[in-house]
């Protein structure tokens, strides 16, 4: 990419997954959950941690078993591994964080169908060693987390007037604050995701142009 500096593979993966190849605004994967959970920061945080961990561990397991997996049942085994980690997360939430488990409801189980996890398993873990795959899965999750948290801040702040359930706008403005009902509902996430994609793409283009100009100047 545009970054001319040499990076180690781990740092390169981090930069790719957070910015140049972000799962949300470049790969446009995992959009369903972006619409569903981002009206509340607490749910978003737990959900994105869940996605990061299950992507990391499934990528690691699939990479470790890769040589043993028969080609015909490759996808089936991937889904099995992914569901395994997601159900473990669901069980842990139900046992230790019952309130959050209740408010997330069916969304935790739906992590299984998050396209990012399968995308990383197919696209990266199959042809890379386990530890690097773990790192790739984790940072992909972080890329997803960064965008979702950004959207959740806007939606919770304008929709409820609070952040992490703590009143902010309602406390500052009192009765003068009217919650934006649209922010609570799924359509607002569409607009916000589109704005994020627009902003990020524009910034990336500008960075590429600037990097090119710099290279040209150095010659």
């Amino acid at each position, binding site marked *: 990419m545009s970054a001319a500096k040499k990076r180690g593979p781990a740092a390169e993966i981090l930069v790719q997954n957070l910015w140049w190849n972000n799962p949300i605004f470049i790969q446009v994967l995992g959009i369903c959950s972006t619409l569903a959970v981002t009206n509340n920061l607490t749910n978003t945080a737990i959900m994105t941690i869940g996605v990061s961990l299950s992507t990391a561990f499934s990528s690691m397991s699939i990479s470790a078993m890769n040589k043993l997996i028969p080609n015909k049942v490759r996808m089936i085994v991937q889904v099995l591994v992914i569901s395994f980690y997601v159900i*473990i997360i669901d069980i842990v939430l139900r046992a230790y964080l019952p309130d959050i488990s209740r408010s997330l409801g069916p969304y935790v189980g739906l992590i299984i169908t998050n396209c990012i996890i399968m995308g990383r398993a197919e696209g990266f873990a199959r042809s890379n060693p386990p530890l690097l795959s773990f790192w790739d899965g984790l940072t992909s999750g972080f890329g997803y987390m960064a965008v979702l948290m950004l959207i959740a801040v806007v939606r919770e702040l304008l929709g409820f007037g609070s952040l992490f359930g703590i009143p902010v706008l309602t406390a500052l403005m009192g009765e003068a604050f009217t919650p934006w*009902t649209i922010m609570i509902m799924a359509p607002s996430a569409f607009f916000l995701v589109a704005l994020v994609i627009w902003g990020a793409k524009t910034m990336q283009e500008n960075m590429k142009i600037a990097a090119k100009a710099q290279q040209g100047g150095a010659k």
Partner: protein
Amino acid sequence: MKRDGMLYTVLFTFIICIVFVFFLALANELTKDRVAANRRFAERSAILSALGIGYSTPGEVDSLYDAQVSTLKTDAGLLYKVTIDGQPRYAAKVAGPGLWGTIQAIIAVDQQVQRIEGFQILSHNETPGLGGRIDEPWFKAQFKGEKIGPQGIAVRQGSGKGDPDPDNSQVDAVTGASRTSQSIQEIVNKELTIFKTLRDKGGLQ
């Protein structure tokens, strides 16, 4: 053995399923008691709150529940009973359809079925921030002490901040969640009818 051969594929799939399912079953078994305890705590604390018994720490819930709440088997199912200042109160677990899924709640009434003593939500799948606001304290508090009319109570459009009058048999609906509010009205009124029938048959003792 060939990696893409029939036998290997079948064996591999079989073994891998057994291994992963074994660990899932193990995790489930290890947390079973904790999950059951969480569920019991959620239910008991809702029953206590609906019956108007306050608790300050989560640890008190079990002992308060055991000391004060008795169960009563009736034609209309299991009732939870407490006696406060000589006046018995009855609570029942109810369930009914909401907009997206089943809403489970606890409704408590006095012996004459004249006033609602309390209302608590056990579980629901309504839209967070819209229908989900039925689980907010201001909404549930409106029911406490509300007079039960001939038709039960009405959940209707009001200020959206809670109806302060306990004698008009009305509570405010949640703004932007008309259908969830309608569901709550139906669930509550259905149960109030059951309570009234039970009272007339002398079942509330």
